[in-house]
C-alpha cells in the first residue's frame, strides 16, 4: 500500500551530519518522532474518581504535579496545564483508548482530542542539546533545574512548544505541525556551530 501520510518534515530530514565537525562527533542529534497518537485529555484533576478511572483506562496514573510527567513504556503522560495532560502513545493504542477516555470525561467538564496530526515531535539530544535550547528558550535547562521527566510549555525560537525531557539529556519538543519545519530548520541552523546529526525518524 502506498504510504498516504506525509509528516511536516518529509523531504527535509535526510539523515546525515551537518555543520561544524569535531573529533568528538556532532554535539546535536535531532530526529523526528512520527506516527504518534497524541491525546490531549482535559478533566477534573483533583477528582479522585476521575483519576482512578483514567488510570484504569491507561494502565498508569496521570502526573499530579505541574511540570512533571509519568513515563509508561511506549506511552507517557505530560502535565501541560491545570486539568490538562498530553498523552503521547503509539498510534494503535491511541485508537483503542480514545473511546474509553471519551467515556470517562462524558459526564465531566473536560474533553478528549487526538492531536497526532496537529503536532510535529522532534527528539533533541546530544552533548550540546541544552545549549541549543538556551538559544531560543528562556527556561533554565541546568540539570538541577530541569531533571529528567520535566515538562514545560514555553517558547522556543519564537514558537509555542511543549518541552519534555523524556530521559536524561533527551528532549522531545512538541510544536504545532504548521511550524514543524520552521522549528526543524531553526534547530539545524542554530545547531550548526555544534555540528548536527540528523537521525532516522523514530516510529516507536
Amino acid at each position, binding site marked *: 500500500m502506498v504510504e498516504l501520510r506525509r509528516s*511536516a518534515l518529509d523531504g527535509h530530514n535526510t539523515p546525515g551530519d551537518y555543520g*561544524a565537525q569535531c573529533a568528538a562527533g556532532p554535539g546535536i542529534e535531532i530526529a523526528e518522532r512520527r506516527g504518534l497518537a497524541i491525546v490531549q485529555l482535559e478533566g477534573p484533576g483533583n477528582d479522585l474518581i476521575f483519576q482512578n478511572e483514567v488510570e484504569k483506562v491507561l494502565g498508569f496514573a496521570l502526573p499530579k504535579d505541574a511540570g512533571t510527567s509519568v513515563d509508561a513504556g511506549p506511552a507517557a503522560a505530560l502535565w501541560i496545564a491545570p486539568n490538562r495532560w498530553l498523552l503521547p502513545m503509539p498510534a494503535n493504542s491511541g485508537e483503542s483508548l480514545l473511546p474509553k477516555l471519551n467515556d470517562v470525561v462524558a459526564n465531566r467538564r473536560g474533553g478528549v482530542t487526538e492531536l497526532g496530526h496537529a503536532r510535529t515531535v522532534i527528539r533533541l539530544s546530544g552533548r550540546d542539546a541544552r545549549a541549543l535550547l538556551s538559544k531560543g528558550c528562556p527556561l533554565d535547562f541546568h540539570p538541577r533545574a530541569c531533571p529528567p521527566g520535566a515538562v514545560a510549555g514555553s517558547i522556543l525560537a519564537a514558537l509555542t512548544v511543549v518541552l519534555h525531557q523524556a530521559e536524561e539529556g533527551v528532549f522531545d519538543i512538541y510544536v504545532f505541525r504548521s511550524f514543524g519545519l520552521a522549528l526543524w530548520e531553526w534547530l539545524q541552523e542554530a545547531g*550548526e556551530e555544534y555540528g548536527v546529526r540528523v537521525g532516522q525518524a523514530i516510529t516507536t
Partner: protein
Amino acid sequence: MMGAQANRRDGGGRIDRSKPINFLFNGKRYQGYEGDSLASALLANGVKLVGRSFKYHRPRGVMTAGPEEPNALVQLGEGARSEPNLRATEIPLTEGLVARSQNCWPSVNFDLQSINNVFSKILPAGFYYKTFMGPASLWMTYERVIRRAAGMGEGPVKPDPDVYDRHFGHCDVLVVGGGSAGLAAALAAGRSGARVVVAELDRYLGGQILSEPGAAGRQIDGRLAGDWLAAAEAELDTLPDVKVLTRTTAFGYYDDDLVGLCQIEDSNKPGGPRQRIHYIRAQQVILASGAIERPLVFADNDRPGHMLASAARSYANRFAVAAGSKAVVFTNNDSAYEAARDLAAAGVTLAAVIDLRAEVRPDLVAEMARLGATVMTETAIVATHGGKGIWSVEVMDLDAEGTSCHGAKRMIHCDLLVSSGGWSPTVHLFSHAQGKLRYDPELAAFLPDHAPQNITCVGAANGKWDLASCLEEGATNGAAAAIAAGFSADAKAPAAAAEPAHAPLRVLWQVPLQEGSHAKRFVDHQDDVATSDVALAARENFISVEHLKRYTTLGMGTDQGKTSNINGLGIMSDIRGLPVRQVGTTTFRPPYTPVTMGALAARESGPHLAPKRRTPMHDWHVAEGASMVEVGQWYRPRYYPRAGENLFKAAQRETRHVREAVGMCDVTTLGKIDIQGKDAGELLNRVYINGFAKLPVGKARYGVMLREDGIAYDDGTTTRLAENHYLMTTTTANAGRVMNELEHLLQVVWPDLDVAVTSVTDLFASMSIAGPKTREVLQALDGDIDFSNEGLPFMGHVEGTLAGMPAHVFRISFSGELAYEVAVPSDYGTAMWEAILAAGKPHDIAPYGTEALALLRIEKGHVVISAEINGTTTADDLGFGRMTSTKKAFIGQRSLARPAFVETGRQQLVGLKAVDGASRIPGGAQLVTDPKQSIPMDMQGHVTSTCFSPNLNEPLAIALLADGRSRMGEELYAISPLHDVETKVRVVSPHFIDPEGERLRG
C-alpha cells in the same frame, strides 16, 4: 620616519613577540604583536594622531586604555563587515586587521573641517539649534550637511554576512568584571558549587592586575599578582558550574536581576556567531566593574599625547609600550605616582610631576626625586603647546582657592602628558538596577548606596582603591551571594600587602586659565564640550544636569561621558555654588557601551524575521510554481502562473475556471476550534449573534461574532459534529485571538459551563473544491460518502472515508459555486490533494490561489476581515441584521442599542458598478455625489474591495455607503485623488453573481 614599533620596550608586557601581527591603519601598514590592542599597537608605532574631534575637528589621540575611550574611535573592517565607532582601546589586534579614523576628511593629517577650530568662538553649545532654526522645510538639508560634518562613522550598506546569536542563561551568582575583586568573588562563590558566570569585557581576565609591572608588581597570597591570576583562572576552569565569558560586556541591568551581556566571539566555526547576546537571569549579582580615571580639565588638554595616567601605565606595563619619551605627570591625587614610577621604569624620562595639592606624601616626593623628577606642588598647567602631538606645557603657581594662577610661567618640554583627576567607580549597572548613588566628597565620586535588586558592588566599583580591600570585598560578597542563593561558602580572601593610605585628593574641577587666555578646557572630549559651554548653559539657565546634558551634549555620544560626566557636574556645582550632591547626576541607562543591532536581532532577520507557517500541501504548491504570499505567518499560494501569465491574468483565469468548471484551493489556514461538552451549544449561542444550540447534528451554520462594544469581530462556519461536539472555524487572521477569547470566557467569565475548547487548526489539511463540476470530481473518488444533493445538502457535513483516508466533508461555499470542503488529518493533506487532482483531471480541475479566492468572494459579495469587518462596522452595517437573534443574549448585544448604532446615516454594505461598465473603481476611493464640490467634500462612503470580474467582464466593487441599502440604483462618483481617478458608479446589491444562491444549492 618613525621606525617600526619604535616605542616598544625590549622586554616585559603581556605580548608575544614571537607572533608579529600585520595590520593596516588609515591605509598604512604597521606591525604589532599578539596580545596588543589596536591602540597599543598604534602607540608602539608612534601613531599619536588617531582621529579628529566631533565639532572642531581638532587632532586627537588615544586617551585611555579601556571602554571609556572618547577619542580613538575607528571604523573597523571593510565592506559588508565594516563597523563604525569602535574603540581602538578595546579591539584586539588580529592579522590583517583594517581600520581607519573617523570624522576626518580627506585624511586625519589634513582635515579640511579643522577650520571649525578657528571659528570655534562662533560654534558654542547649542550652535546648531540656534542657527538652523528655520524654515522647517530646510532642516532636512541642514541635517545632511551637519551629519556629514559630524561624521561619526558609516554603517555598512551591504547585508551583514555574519551570524549573530542569543543565549538565555541562568545562574546563582553573576560576577560582572574579572579583575581582582571579581575573581575573588567568583572563586568564593564558585567553590561553593554555586552556578557562577563571570563577564569580563577585556579579552583576558585580570583587570588592573594585567597592568602590574611584572616582577616589581604587587603580590597576592605570597606570589606575583600575575601568577595568582593564572592560578585563579585555572581553578575557575576546573569548577564545572563556573562559566567565564571574556570579551563580554554587561551592557544593561533589567528587572528581576536580568542582565544583558554582549559577547564578541568572531567565531570562525561554521554557523558560529560573530557576537552573542546573553540574557542572564541571576539570583545575585556582584558588580566588580572597577573604576574609571578622570582626566584633569585644563587649557588645551585635548592634544594627542595627553592621556590618563592609568592608561599610560597600562601601555607601559601590559603592552610594553612607552607612550612617549619625556613625560609630564599632572595630578590631584596619589594614584598618578604609581604611573610615574612605572613610566620611569619603562625608560620614560620624567620631566616633572605637577601636583595641584599643597602637600604631597614625603615618600612619594622622595621616590620621584630618586627617579629624577621634581614634584611641583600647588602648581597647575596653564597652557599646552603642540600640533598633532604635544611639545611642551607651561605651569604656574596655583592659589589656595584654585581660582587663579600667579607667579612666573615656566615651560616644560615633553611629548607625553598624563593626568589624573581622581577615580569614578563604574556604577553604571548599579544605576540600571535602580540603585541610588551617594556622593562622597572625600573621593569626589559617586558611590553605590542602595538598590532594590540583588546587586552588590565590590572593589573599585565600591570606591576601594587598594588591592587588599578589593580582594577582601570580593571574597566576602562572593561568598555571601552564594549563601544567599542557598549554598554554604567560605569567605576567606586572598591576601595582599597593605598599601600606604592615599592622601586626600584636591578637588579642582577646572584648572584656572592664565589671565587673558581664551584656550579651551575640554570636559567631554568626544563631544567637544568645553568648560565655556557648561558656563554658557548655566548662563542660559540650563542648570539641571539633564538640561546641561542635552543642551551642551556633555555626556552624550558613544562613550556617554565615561570620562567627563563627573567633571561636568563638578564645574556646574562650582558655577552654581552648590555641593555636587545637590547638583545631582544624570541617570545611567543601558547600554553601558553600544550594542550592535545585529546582535540584538540575533537570528531573527531576513527570512527568519518571523517563523514560517506552512500548510501540509506547501511543498506541492512550491513545486508547482505557485507564487506564495505571506498571510500573517502563513504562506499561501497566491496564484499558479502558467506560461506568459502575470498575477492579473492568472487570477482572472483561475476565477473564471471555478465558475465554469472546477477549481481547488488550500484553505488549511482558517482557524479551527474543537468545542466539546454538554454546554457547547450554549457557549456558541453566547459568542455568536445567531443561534447554534438548535443546529442539527451534521449541519454547519455561518456565524458572526461581535466585540463587547457591538462591532463585528469575526465570522466563519461552525458545524455540529455530534450532540455535544462542535467544530468552529474562524478567519485566518483571528484564529489565535478567538481561541484566547474562548479560553478566557470559560476560565474567567463562565467557569460554570461544561465546555472544553482546543485549537485544532493544525489537525486538518483543508481544501475547498468549487465549481459546477465539483460533484463529478468527488464522486470519482473511492469512499463511502454520498455527494448527492440529498445525501449532502447545502450546509451539510459528513464524516467518512475518501480515497482511503478519513475525511470530513462540509458542503459550504465561499465562492458562491457548488462547493465542498474536504478536511483530512494533516499528514494526509498532500495525498488527498493529489487524489482529488487526479480524480478531477477529466474535468480539467485547476488549483486556485488567494487572489482568485478574493475575486470570487467579491463577485459573491462576501465580506472579509480588514476590508469590511474593519473594526468600525456592525453586523447590521454588513447586512447581517436579520441574522441577529432577539431571543438570546450574546456578547456585544447590549451595545447594539447605542444611539450611534441605530441612527440613520450609518454606512452600509453595497455593491458598485461602473456606469460605463469599463472604468476602474479604485480601492479606497471616496464616494461623493458631486465630484466638483469644494473641499472639504461631503464624503458618503468608500470602496472597501474592488476587482475586475472575469465572469461579468466588468469592474465591480464593494463599498460602505451612508444609508447604502436604501440607495440602490443611485449614481455617485468614486473619486481617488491618489490614483487620479474619478469614476461614475451605480449603487447595486453586493451579490453580483447568483443572488438567489441557486448555484451553491444545485
